[in-house]
């Protein structure tokens, strides 16, 4: 049991917190609207080597663990970086497993993205990084495909709530990189990694939303004193740190489980999913749990933070609305969290059935 980041992860955190603060943040996020892609910041990100971080060392990548990537994704969320870091990282890792991750992808000059849901009629719909990625990996039938390169992906951007780089992608002429049950399983693993890293992004968004709310209530005066001195305002904010830290811990646990579940691309330690005694180390379950919990933490934190901003929170001028819209976009882009919950519950083991005469035990 150790809840500290490793020394290396501490360094990663410091480096990327500084990077995202300097190269992204609310001003840049505004400038990157409505597409949600900052090409200049991505150019700078290439210099850090971040795009190849997640791929294996054997393939020429950085060999970072899911836990390491979680640290970066959280900082990206905290500064609402308009960059497809998460999608690129999980997609390079997926392509790596089918030996289809090329040098451009590793360098980040070819941005790759992931279609989360199977294609319908040859179209991968609402791909989260579809308006930023040059190439998108999708499931089409029982095949894992890589679509034809798109030079100007932002042309296909779909205007949306959170200014995410959403686009539909036409899979006509796509290259088949794998097929069959193994391909589907690899894609499912990539989507679980996306869940985990998106949860981390949401945790970062939630943390910043709390900070913005606290700063505002200390600055804004009504009735002759800061509104942050009123208990009714304080208590709306006081519920949030536990909610956000809890989601952060669950996300870190999911990443830890994901790193244990595969070692060098092979099956690692099997997880446990015993909800009846609250023992859960299964990656697939934890990834779903983390996304639901982080989505709720981010939507709640941005909701309360916006509310204590009063009318200014609703205005475009203040930053909280940027966080508010991105929290919802990332929490819902994979689908209804209630459906995610039902999917999770369907993985639970058959309950132990007590004999009705067993009484209270």
């Amino acid at each position: 049991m150790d809840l500290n980041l490793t020394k290396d992860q501490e360094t990663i955190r410091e480096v990327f917190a500084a990077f995202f603060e300097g190269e992204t943040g609310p001003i840049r996020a505004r400038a990157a609207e409505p597409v949600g892609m900052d090409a200049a910041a991505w150019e700078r990100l290439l210099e850090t080597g971040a795009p190849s971080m997640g791929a294996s060392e054997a393939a020429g990548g950085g060999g970072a663990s899911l836990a390491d990537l979680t640290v970066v994704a959280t900082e990206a969320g905290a500064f609402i970086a308009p960059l497809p870091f998460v999608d690129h990282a999980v997609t390079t890792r997926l392509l790596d497993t089918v030996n289809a991750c090329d040098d451009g992808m590793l360098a980040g000059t070819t941005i790759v993205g992931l279609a989360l849901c199977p294609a319908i009629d040859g179209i991968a719909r609402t791909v989260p990084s579809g308006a930023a990625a040059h190439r998108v990996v999708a499931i089409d039938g029982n095949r894992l495909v890589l679509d034809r390169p798109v030079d100007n992906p932002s042309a296909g951007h779909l205007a949306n709530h959170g200014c995410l780089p959403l686009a539909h992608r036409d899979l006509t002429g796509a290259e088949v990189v794998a097929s069959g049950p193994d391909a589907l399983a690899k894609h499912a693993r990539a989507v679980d990694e996306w869940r985990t890293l998106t949860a981390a992004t949401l945790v970062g968004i939630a943390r910043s939303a709390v900070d913005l709310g606290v700063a505002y209530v200390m600055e804004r005066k009504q009735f002759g004193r800061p509104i942050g001195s009123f208990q009714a305002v304080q208590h709306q904010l006081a519920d949030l740190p536990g909610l956000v830290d809890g989601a952060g811990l669950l996300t870190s646990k999911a990443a830890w489980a994901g790193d244990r579940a595969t070692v060098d691309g092979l099956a690692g330690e099997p997880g446990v999913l015993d909800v009846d005694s609250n023992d859960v180390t299964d990656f697939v379950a934890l990834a779903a749990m983390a996304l639901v919990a982080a989505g709720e933490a981010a939507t709640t934190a941005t909701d309360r933070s916006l509310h204590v901003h009063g009318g200014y929170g609703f205005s475009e001028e203040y930053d909280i609305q940027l966080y508010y819209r991105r929290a919802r976009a990332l929490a819902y882009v994979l689908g209804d969290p209630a459906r995610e919950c039902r999917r999770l519950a369907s993985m639970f083991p058959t309950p132990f059935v007590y004999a009705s005469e067993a009484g209270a035990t």
Partner: protein
Amino acid sequence: MDFSLGDRAEFFRDEVRNFLAEHLTTEVVERMHSTGTFDDKDFNVALAEAGLLAGAVPGYGDRDPIELYILFNELEKAGAPYDGLAVTMLVAGVVNAVGTDLHRDTVLPQLLSGRSSCCLGYSEPDYGSDLAAITTRAVRDGDEWIIDGQKMWTTMAHEAEWVILLTRTNPDVPKHKGLTMFLVPMDTPGIEVQPVPTMASERTNATFYDGVRVDDGCRLGEVDDGWAVMGIALAFERGVMGGTNPAVPLLRHVRSWAAKTPAPDGGTILNDPLMLERTARTAIANQVSQLLTLRAAWIAATGGLPGLEGSMAKLYATERYQQTVRWFQQMAGAEGLLSFGTDGAAADGWIDYDGRHSPVTTIYGGTTEINRNNVAERHLGLPRSR
């Protein structure tokens, strides 16, 4: 980060689970619910004899707070009587930290044997959250003290051998600075216990202190330094000693019930869409509650004082528990109203039980409002608001 408990802690957890499989009998659980006394001496003695109790004292023995957390978490998840035991072990921790040699040599072994237990004499009829304002007086008389006053919510007082008593020894200084803590035998003349029945099956008490004479040796900590002793007790308590995973047995019993309850369209209600969603949300909240609690234990294990983290765990866990109870109470309808041992009771009566018990969890051990004040002031840096 590493979320595995480690070999040693896992071994300890298995020991606790094996113990529970053998000793947590239907009789023990039924006795607990029929008497409303969530403390069972025979069960406690068995725990002590299995060597599981000595390590349960915070700051004493060779177990770390992670193992302390494991012990109480396993007891809570299993639905075992542990409320009284948690208080006793908490007091044992305080005795170990600030007690005299005499306390450590005489009281501690009794508490650790499971044969002796302790109750908390903090709250009074007029002072709950504003605890430092309590008025029970202790006046020095030579080598003795004379205590007069009344305490409220002294749960287990009718069974306990000891009460840890917060008293006012100096009314002329700011309220936090005139308090002194005592550890008083419950058979001292002048102590009277009156039951306070509750809407749940658990019983609590009011206790009355009329000219209670105790030796100065009963004092815990320095004169007028009782607030610091309270601080130690709270730091031990928060998060680590149960109370943050109450929805685990509820979920287990609800799932069991759902799996044997036919759905109108065939199959069972376990696969009802709303049941799937709510069981999943409960399982998620249970994981988060566990992690927030484990963080508090881990901070304590690595030498910190997890006061704030304990507040966060309690706030989250208790609000979620109440929400879970509301969901399942609604979904179970009439059968959910039926009590333990009743024919047709949903979840074997646990929904009724948790429906009665859950309201107190956002009140006792520090109300939601006090915990929010704590987080607002000490974590978010907002001004004091009262």
